[in-house]
């Protein structure tokens, strides 16, 4: 079946098996491999995307359910920078600056989850951060530098950038 959806602001069509997930469609039928597939059952969060602005696991959304809807993936966060180069989204930059990226597999999901958190809460407490990221697992970093990145991104956003 043909699924028609908007991804990162642009209209796309994907020829999908009716039972496949949005994650599979994004990675295999569309050019958006940024969302990762680690568990395929909503436990790890590496497939986190925004569906109509809401944080979800793409592995738990039927591709057909995204028909007529809007998806934002990690690829949709960075914007054009100076001289045509792509700048990283401030949250992505914060992760890089904090040393919060090791193998990088969890990073797209964590970045999307952090973007969602900061859209709703400008100065999240540590407990709020913990709860907001509770659906994202990282096997490399031990989370400390991820927390540093989120706090830095929150401070930068609250301070109007730096």
């Amino acid at each position, binding site marked *: 079946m043909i699924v028609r959806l908007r991804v990162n602001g642009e209209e796309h069509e994907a020829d999908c098996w009716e039972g496949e*997930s949005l994650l599979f469609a994004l990675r295999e039928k569309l050019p958006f491999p940024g969302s990762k597939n680690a568990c395929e*059952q*909503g*436990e790890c969060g590496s497939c986190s995307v925004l569906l109509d602005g809401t944080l979800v696991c793409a592995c*738990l*959304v*039927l591709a057909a359910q995204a028909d007529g809807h809007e998806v934002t993936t990690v690829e949709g966060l960075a914007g054009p920078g100076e001289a045509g180069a792509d700048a990283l989204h401030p949250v992505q930059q914060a992760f890089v600056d904090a040393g919060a990226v090791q193998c990088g597999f969890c990073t797209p999901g964590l970045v999307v989850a952090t973007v969602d958190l900061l859209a709703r809460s400008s100065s999240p407490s540590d407990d709020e951060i913990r709860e907001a990221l*509770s*659906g994202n697992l990282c096997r490399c970093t031990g989370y400390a530098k991820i927390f540093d990145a989120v706090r830095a991104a929150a401070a930068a956003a609250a301070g109007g950038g730096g």
Partner: protein
Amino acid sequence: MQGVNPLAKNRTVRAVDVLTPRSLDEAIALKAEQPEAWPIQGGTDVMVALNFDHGRPPALLNLNEVPELRGWSRENGSLRLGSGLTYMEIERGELREILPALAEASRTVGSPQIRNRGTIGGNLGTASPAGDALPPLLVEAAEVECTSVRGVRRLALGEFVTGVKRTALAPDELITAVWLVPSRAPQTFMKIGPRNAMVIAVVSLAVSAGDELRASFGSAAPRPVLVTAARDDASTFAERVAEAAAPIDDVRGTAAYRRHALRVLTERALERTLAA
């Protein structure tokens, strides 16, 4: 694992249809035509089964575009919770004040990603003994509204769930809403697990302390169980709750631990709710 070899030359791939009704009338007509279709709303249970090929239904009935299933409303002193109401909507909205135990339970489900999609209708349809919405709904004497082309009926929650992952839903029916009259009694929900997110309850408990004490537990019996007592009998309530449970040993814990945990949780719940 014994199973299907996807590379076997004689293997047929069974087709799956997706049906996407745009109204409740259309949805129940489709379910009547295709009773074998799996309803899918939040997808947090159905997609796991599909992703791991644990089931291959002839059709998926996508309920995401049926507006009648969403949200909640007040109707003559009762609350109607749409079967498509998500845990996040319960956790963050006005229902926090009206149904605090259900809101606390909702907050313990999975992760934000799961809570943004998972629904109480799905929790009822799956009817797992570990379902987090079931104890707080049972304590509030919830009824499950089931709709088909033949009409609408309501079943008390205790009668709706008939066994482990079994319900009284007819093949042509959809769960459309949950009805209850909020007790406004002090109430709470607790859940035990190895961490404080992404956990299927080892055991859980909802308690309300109104004119009578009411308790219902999860992961400690095959079906939802309601335990009641007079407020004056609070001192023996924890023991009554533990005795009413029928826990088993399984991968998440032992029966003995679950029974012990229910005693402790009930005492704590009474401390919270009787003081309120």
